């Protein structure tokens, strides 16, 4: 038991160590406490703003935007990727858009999105959709393309109708790639929503960070950072749980 506790300590000591150093720096007055508020003040800000609902409100806004954009990207991107994987014409038509467009920093288009969709929620969701669409389509398209022709032939040979081939062979074979695409896209959704909220909005965690920093309330900035980290962890676990459910034949460490 003690050896296990020691091992945990040996593997995780750096976080408490860093927090100790942080606290010591603040207590010793070495850094400005305005810039690096003490841990107790960060904790206080966190508890206070969760208690009065402010942080929960902004988190709700950010999460709903991120999930909505992500959801639409999956809803449109996955059938699209499947079509690209199966039809050569569709592949030839859209491959350049996805493969040449992939490394283009799409964030530059955000100002245009604010003109087309306004500065509120719609432009955030639309932009999150665009940013999530790329990893989802590209990753799952490679999965759909990688389905072994042998499997399809075998199914056809055994008299499977096209619908059955799609549903029982094609989709399950691509499922691991689909999930890795979703897992890449989800954190992107959160990053993009926070980022665009920081650029311009009056609600959401990104706004909360900007407004707290202009008020020099850096304890609240750190509190929001903690909340974002927790959200991302929870969402990632949700995708992993979904994957474990749907791709039960693939072990966790292979993803």
């Amino acid at each position: 038991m003690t050896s296990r506790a020691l091992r945990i300590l040996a593997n995780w000591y750096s976080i408490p160590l860093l927090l100790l150093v942080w606290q010591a720096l603040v207590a010793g007055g070495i850094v400005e406490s305005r810039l690096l508020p003490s841990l107790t003040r960060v904790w206080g800000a966190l508890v206070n703003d969760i208690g009065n609902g402010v942080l929960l409100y902004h988190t709700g806004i950010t999460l709903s935007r991120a999930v909505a954009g992500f959801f639409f990207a999956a809803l449109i991107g996955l059938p699209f990727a499947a079509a690209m994987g199966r039809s050569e014409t569709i592949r030839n038509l859209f491959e350049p858009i996805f493969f040449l467009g992939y490394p283009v920093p799409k964030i530059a288009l955000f100002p245009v999105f604010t003109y087309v969709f306004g500065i509120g929620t719609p432009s955030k969701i639309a932009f999150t959709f665009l940013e999530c669409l790329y990893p989802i389509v590209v990753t799952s398209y490679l999965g759909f393309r990688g389905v072994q022709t042998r499997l399809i032939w075998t199914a056809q040979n055994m008299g499977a109708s096209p619908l059955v081939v799609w549903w029982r062979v094609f989709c399950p074979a691509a499922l691991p790639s689909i999930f890795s695409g979703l897992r890449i896209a989800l954190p992107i959704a959160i990053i993009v929503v926070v980022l665009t909220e920081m650029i311009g909005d009056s609600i959401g965690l990104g706004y909360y960070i900007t407004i707290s920093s202009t008020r020099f309330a850096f304890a609240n900035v750190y509190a929001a950072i903690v909340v974002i980290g927790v959200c991302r962890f929870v969402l990632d676990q949700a995708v992993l749980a979904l994957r474990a459910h749907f791709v039960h034949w693939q072990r966790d460490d292979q993803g």
Partner: protein
Amino acid sequence: MKAPSRSVQHWIVPLATLAAWELFGRTGLLPRYLSTPTLILAALWEITLDGELFSALASSLYRVSLGFLLGTGAGVLVGLGAGRLPGVRHFFDPLVSFLYAIPKIAFLPIFLLLFGLGHASKISIIAFSCFFPVFVASRHAVLSVNKVLIWSAQNMGAPPHTMFFRVIIPSAAPQLFAGIRIGLAHAFVILFAAELIGSKAGLATLITEGEEAARFDLMFAGIVCFAVLGFLSDRVLMTIRRRVLRGQIMGTEEQVVR
């Protein structure tokens, strides 16, 4: 017969989009803020001639390249160290797994307060955000080097530096490049956001200036430059990768992602 029709198909959607944009833009069916491709080209020419493009480009390029190089360098060094030395690994793993989950842009206000509105805050936050994907990839790459290779080299009496440069780095290189590519993508996103939120120079500022003056052709010119800059940097990185990994790519089917 097959090959030409394929490359023709590749051009249909992009060209049709541009043509439709131009056509609908000219006939006034599109709102004015969408401009038209020809107007954007004219605006590009205009800012090239008056030098505005070059000063903005120089400032953005300086920030992104320095930030990217610093962050990537640190990520590779610490990541390789963490892969080789358990002590380093145990120190960095918990910190990185905690910080990795947080969008680095959330730290921007802190960096702005620390380093001011000039180059330093952008460079440091770009470096900060590049560090993580590169660290994770190189740590992982070193740990997954085939043990047999290491044992053989040890068996043949390879000294530590030979081991490092001739065995570990070459076999970790493909994963290293994958991490660096993600870092590069992060660098441009952070650059754009940091320039929009707090800056007086750079391509993003060019875009906001165009916006404020209602010169939407200028805004798009800035957007095009930014997109092209990001795209070309990725291409340069991929070219370097192909050079470095020549031996490893040879004979294998390169992924469709070019």
